[in-house]
């Protein structure tokens, strides 16, 4: 017999109560972990940003295009090592449901994978992509989600760029690490530009944005200023910034939603704190006399506090561990349902640490009032209580 055994035995005096409370904590921690993972997934683009890449876009709005002629001028700025570009194609694959949404980008086939080295394409597939004007390279997750294979034709109904478009899968890229977005489709900007001459001449020779690779990340501010200075007096002024800042601006658009999710995640913790506190208060009240008897035997108020806190921590940490264990498979399942909305959906170490700390804090706080009350109670008053 030891104190830990006494804590365990007391906990399962009312098995159903303890089990339900542990499960309640587990569900709360699971919900907290899932919400936090959604919040962090929203910012994955920021985290995946490369320090040696800048994004140059139209100064007025991202939706306005820039002349493709800017490319060579930007490439000539000291400190710039490589320039590529992209257009947001959009279009509709099958229908406009979430399941069939994925990013579709017209890119410079020659340079895109040199700038985005984290997207790894087998050499033969890259060669095939470069060779075939109407081909595409797709991400691994996208291929898995829709069962696309090399040689398949992906039909897209254009909206920004009208018409029926068909792209033959020439390659599948895999992310170098888990922060890489594997849900995109890249096709030839030249193909887009060529067809646009016939169908939408007003959009020809224009790109959505430039991605500028630089040699020294600490020169980012200077090079950005130099690029923007080039076009300060043109009709299509530019705004250049680090890729991280560019991604952050998108995240900021959803700031209210992200903040709401964070608040909800903390509210959930608050709720389970109340539930656990109620359970511990009930348990402590039922055992006032027992605690008094223990003190008559020579156990001190600190022992009683330790018993109460021990029970509370057992519940909170067991529930927390269970909730955290469930967070991984549930998050994995959740992310798999929305691969293109959340291309990178992984439980971050910070989420695990936060959840564990909250479980610990909840256990301590929930026990604080009943522990203090039991410790302050006089032995003679405790012995008079009817258990």
């Amino acid at each position: 017999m030891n104190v830990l055994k006494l804590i365990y035995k007391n906990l399962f005096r009312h098995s159903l109560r303890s089990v339900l409370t542990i499960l309640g904590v587990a569900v709360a921690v699971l919900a907290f972990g899932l919400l936090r993972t959604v919040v962090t997934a929203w910012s994955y683009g920021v985290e995946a940003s490369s320090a040696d890449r800048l994004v140059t876009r139209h100064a007025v709005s991202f939706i306005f295009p820039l002349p493709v002629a800017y490319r060579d001028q930007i490439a000539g700025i000291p400190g710039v090592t490589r320039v590529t570009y992209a257009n947001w194609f959009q279009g509709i694959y099958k229908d406009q449901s979430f399941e069939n949404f994925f990013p579709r980008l017209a890119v410079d086939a020659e340079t895109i994978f040199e700038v985005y080295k984290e997207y790894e394409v087998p050499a033969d597939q890259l060669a095939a992509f470069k060779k075939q004007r109407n081909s595409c390279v797709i991400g691994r997750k996208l291929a898995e989600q829709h069962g696309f294979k090399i040689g398949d034709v992906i039909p897209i109904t254009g909206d920004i760029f009208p018409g029926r478009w068909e792209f033959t899968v020439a390659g599948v890229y895999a992310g170098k690490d888990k922060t890489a977005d594997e849900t995109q489709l890249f096709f030839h900007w030249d193909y887009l530009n060529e067809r646009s001459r016939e169908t939408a001449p007003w959009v020809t020779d224009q790109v959505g944005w430039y991605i500028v690779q630089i040699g020294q990340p600490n020169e980012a501010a200077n090079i950005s200023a130099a690029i923007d200075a080039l076009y300060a007096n043109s009709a299509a002024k530019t705004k250049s910034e680090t890729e991280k800042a560019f991604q952050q601006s998108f995240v900021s658009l959803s700031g209210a939603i992200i903040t709401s999710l964070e608040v909800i995640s903390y509210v959930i913790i608050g709720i389970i704190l109340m539930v656990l506190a109620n359970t511990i208060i009930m348990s402590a009240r039922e055992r006032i006399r027992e605690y008094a008897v223990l003190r008559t035997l020579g156990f001190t108020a600190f022992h009683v506090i330790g018993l109460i806190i021990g029970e509370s921590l057992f519940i909170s940490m067991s529930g927390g561990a269970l909730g955290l264990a469930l967070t991984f498979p549930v998050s994995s399942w959740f992310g798999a349902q929305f691969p293109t909305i959340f291309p990178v959906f992984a439980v971050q170490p910070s989420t695990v640490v936060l959840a564990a700390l909250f479980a610990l804090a909840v256990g301590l706080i929930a026990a604080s009032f009943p522990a203090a009350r039991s410790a302050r109670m006089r032995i003679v008053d405790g012995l008079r209580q009817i258990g």
Partner: protein
Amino acid sequence: MSTLVEVQNVTKVYRRDTMEIPVLQNISLAVPEGEFLALMGPSGSGKTTLLNLISGIDQPTSGSIIVAGTDIAKLNETALAKWRSNHVGFVFQFYNLMPVMTAFENVELPLLLTNLSKKERKERVEAVLRVVGLEDRMDHYPKQLSGGQQQRVAIARAIVTDPTLIIGDEPTGDLDRKSAEEILILLGRLNKEFKKTIIMVTHDPHAAESAHKVQHLDKGELRQD
């Protein structure tokens, strides 16, 4: 025989909000070592309060209580707890066993505060359970024992640390006649064979007959018999 317990001019006043309730008034009492003392009196006479003061679970408003040479009225809470664990064994009216622990584990509880090894604790527990005649019930939970058996487990718990003093607060109050008799015989045996000093509060004149001496309290004062 030397004096084990010396109560000197003890007064106890309880305070409830702004009211003061005097419970004991200038009590003096000496209990020799090896004595079996019964405290009797009507309800509200202060006998349980006196018992609580002697056993160190409450402290007097004034006066001193010297047990085995220590004035326990001067000890702080932590020191009193340690003193109780070494010197006092309690037997309550309603047994007050831990319901989630077996008889063995209940008796072992006070020994968790000592430096005894697990093996030593086991030996002691088994020995005292033999003394009270429950060696074959040590794995039973309180709800699996009769009232008399539970009280015997409580007595075993009270004596397992070999205390200086055994305190009984109506130890037979919740028992039938037969079980009460068994308990009184056991207490008598502890007193005669093991030379334990016992102070017992009781309403039952028959229980008081087991004691060497009976003291009566009335309205917080000791009656000189």
